């Protein structure tokens, strides 16, 4: 296997391998879902929460490995329980950092205990922590497809109320939106999305698909529908390029995905934003608003 200048030939070569096809399919689905949900994760300032899900999911996955059930089941169980708990804790994410951190630390410790109790190979643990997209089976691709479809339908249903409540919680509440139910629905969606993203990036690197594309997209477009499309495109490019590069090099996919997502983010913040916003907002970028004190 060596890379040639003929991209098409390279892609054909990659496509010959079942594990690469599975990886590309699962990665594509995950990137779309992560791009969409990630936009809202960033908009609602829930990045820390999303990360907590993956670590609570880690405890669940480690427990699953120990008891011999599929790690994904443990992941889903852990992250969903975490999601419901956090949604019930209260409305404002900013006030919940401490509680989330406390639960997160405990979960990681619990995960460690399960791993140390497990006498089998440690590779499974390693893949939960850092992702193993190339180990995805065709059945797992189908599972990912089903979950992705469910998430996208769910997001479509709550899209406008979720956007409204994310931007303007108080008014949305006064207008009669069911805030707790919306928050819970979103948390469950994120929990499921995180669980599947973990297959690609691993527990520790889940930020690169769940947060970085969404955060980058917010700088690219100020209309949410466009920003979501941008977020999905960034997640897709990062995933595809990561798979492509790792196929021809000895380095892990997760590394490439995180590096590319980070590269996008840096480029957009340091180069793109400077050119655009200075035009649009006549220099108001980074300048604090004048009369908003108090």
């Amino acid at each position, binding site marked *: 296997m060596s890379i040639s200048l003929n991209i098409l030939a390279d892609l054909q070569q990659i496509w010959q391998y079942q594990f690469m096809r599975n990886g590309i399919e699962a990665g594509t689905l995950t990137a779309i879902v992560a791009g969409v949900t990630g936009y809202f994760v960033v908009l609602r300032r829930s990045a820390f929460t999303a990360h907590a899900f993956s670590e609570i999911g880690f405890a669940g996955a480690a427990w699953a490995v120990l008891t011999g059930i599929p790690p994904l089941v443990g992941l889903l169980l852990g992250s969903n329980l975490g999601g419901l708990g956090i949604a019930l804790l209260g409305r404002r994410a900013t006030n919940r950092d401490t509680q989330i951190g406390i639960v997160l630390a405990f979960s990681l410790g619990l995960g460690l205990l399960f791993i140390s109790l497990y006498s089998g190979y440690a590779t499974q643990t390693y893949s939960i922590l850092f992702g193993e997209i190339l180990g995805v089976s065709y059945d797992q691709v189908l599972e990912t497809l089903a979950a992705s479809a469910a998430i996208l339908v769910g997001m479509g249903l709550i899209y406008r109320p979720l*956007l409204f*409540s994310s*931007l*303007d919680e108080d008014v*949305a509440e006064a207008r009669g939106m069911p805030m707790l139910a919306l928050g819970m629905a979103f948390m469950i969606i994120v929990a499921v999305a995180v669980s599947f993203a973990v297959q690609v990036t691993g527990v520790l690197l889940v930020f690169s698909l769940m947060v970085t594309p969404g955060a980058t997209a917010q700088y690219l477009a*100020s209309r949410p529908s466009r920003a979501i499309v941008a977020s999905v495109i960034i997640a897709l490019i990062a995933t595809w390029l990561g798979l492509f590069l790792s196929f021809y090099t000895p380095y892990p996919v997760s590394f490439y995905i995180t590096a590319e997502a980070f590269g996008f983010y840096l480029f957009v913040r340091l180069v793109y934003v400077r050119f655009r916003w200075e035009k649009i907002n006549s220099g*108001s970028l980074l300048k604090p608003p004048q009369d908003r004190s*108090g």
Partner: protein
Amino acid sequence: MQQPWASELMAKPIAGSVTVDAKSTLITAEDLSAGYEGRAIWSGASFSFGQGEFVAVLGPNGAGKTTLFRVLLGLQHPMSGSVSIFGAPPRRGNPHIGYVPQRHTIDIETNVECLELVRLGLSGTRWGFNPVAHSDRESAWKALEASGAAELAHRRLGALSGGELQRIFLAEALVSNPEMLLLDEPLSNLDIKRETELLHLVNGVVRSRGVTAMLIAHNINPLLPHLNKVMYVANGKVATGKPSEVLTSESLTRLYGVQVEVLRDPHGNVAIIGVEEHHGDIT
């Protein structure tokens, strides 16, 4: 700043308004009391406001002004007494009420354009996803025009100043064509110029659309030229009436239970002496 046709738009009668009779009553309250955890903040409030009235709600911090709004919005049940709004008990999600909450700010990191927030004031309560629906966009533009904020439509929410934000929030509240506006301290953090501008906007909306507006404020003086009624919340009680009736030494002394002096200067400005937190303060 405002398009010439904007005023015409604002003057257009509102679809679905109950009646055009300027005297029809929108809100009535009888012996109303409200509070938290079984303890009343204020009680014995009786008042009624008609369509198209501009009401200032005044009183010291913590007196329960926002609580009154929460009761009217159906976010909180009254402890006793009765209140009806549009002829029915308050209910959460009443589309006839436009609401701008207190200390309503937007994270400066929020890179979402203003037009989008105003649109959501109309379509944000609808479930499902319709990528081609653009009727709310048109309404949002009209509301932005009416709030004198059309030129802010494509600016990012996080980049706005306090005065600009308040105009966007006003547009967000107006976009669903409400018959009533509840504005919780929209003037705080605004300098005198912006304060006057916003008040003129609100007054324009009240007069041209026949909207009833209740506005919580700390400083009564800039409001006086526009007001129909004043509601003074203090000392666990509520006094309501015309500004000339409520803002008198006798009325406020009765409300506070201590000697209060109301002074007026030749321009009609009011100063209240004898209470710690008089509404000349801008907090």
